[in-house]
């Protein structure tokens, strides 16, 4: 049960955005900017951005964010959707580009302790072709999911357990992006 009175029947961050649209609006705008638009010189696709979000959410053990962003990433990867679970299970063995692997390593350090991101980690990502925008966006995606995860878990919001619920969410996120849910 949530720690405060929230609109019934809405899961995770959606219940919080309807409860307080003043903060919901910038939180959804931030997600849209980071997971869809990206920095001008960034080479990351929307599918890869969603994967970084799911990866960090898994590290934080936030099932709602991990399952919903993994579903969005699978939807956006299309035929290559199996990569998502490969990365979540073991990023080192997944058949993804070395650049994405190097950026996931940076995201991992941002989640654990941002002070441990190092020149060596950044240089490794640049060697694989990461741009300033890729590095910026990776750091802020990882940092922002350390916020979204704590917000969703810290207020004990509703977390659906039916995988079909997440598949529907993933398709909506993959097609419509992030729009604040309407207050009903």
């Amino acid at each position: 049960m949530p720690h405060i009175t929230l609109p019934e029947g809405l899961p995770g961050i959606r219940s919080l955005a309807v409860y307080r649209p003043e903060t919901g609006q910038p939180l959804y705008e931030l997600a849209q900017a980071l997971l869809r638009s990206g920095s001008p010189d960034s080479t990351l696709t929307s599918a890869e951005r969603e994967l970084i979000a799911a990866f960090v959410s898994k590290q934080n053990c936030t099932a709602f964010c991990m399952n919903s962003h993994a579903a969005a990433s699978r939807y956006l990867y299309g035929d290559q959707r199996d990569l998502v679970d490969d990365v979540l299970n073991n990023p080192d063995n997944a058949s993804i580009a070395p650049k994405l692997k190097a950026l996931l390593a940076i995201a991992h350090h941002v989640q654990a302790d941002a002070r441990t991101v190092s020149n060596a980690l950044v240089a490794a990502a640049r060697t694989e072709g990461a741009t300033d925008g890729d590095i910026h966006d990776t750091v802020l995606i990882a940092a922002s999911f350390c916020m979204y995860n704590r917000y969703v878990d810290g207020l004990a919001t509703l977390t659906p357990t039916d995988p079909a619920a997440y598949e529907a969410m993933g398709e909506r996120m993959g097609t419509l992006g992030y729009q604040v849910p309407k207050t009903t």
Partner: protein
Amino acid sequence: MPYIQLPEGLPGIRGPMAFSPQTADPLNALVNVLLRDNASRPDSSLTEGERELIATYVSSLNDCFFCQTIHGAVASHHLGDDDWSLVQSVKCNPDQAAISPKLKALLAVAGAVQQSGKAVTPELIAAARAEGATDLDIHDTVLIAAAFCMFNRYVDGLATEAPNKPDLYRYRATRIAADGYASQDAYMPPGESTPVAGTN
């Protein structure tokens, strides 16, 4: 030195905000609601100074020098803490600090959020309610703590630079208290243009 090419002379979060205006806008909107606007809602019992103390406390737990110093300076500005001793006591030992029992209980919630959202227990929430915390107070405390787990990582994960002159933070605190959080205004006091790197 920052890991990416940032505009010169902009310390802390202002460098990445200038690099990425499209994310700076929602980030500033978020802190303006959480640290300023919501203080005047009828269902809030947290003042601007108390909200800044929560941000400072979490930034201190995350060991983020820039964020704990600027938000500590803003908290001190609001609370008449001229020598910064109150802020220092909240960072070192909130249980012994000269703050209300309600704020102590909410700082305990914020400290749990800093560890993990799942560390927030019904007992911590009940203790805050027993001291008079409202739903909005609890919501805002959790989101302020969560948001600073983001801001701190953004600032430190890109290795941004931080000034070390207390007077510059005092000056910035007066500007923020008057005008709110923004990414377009001049950072330095009028007539001073020393690049940040030169102050370290």
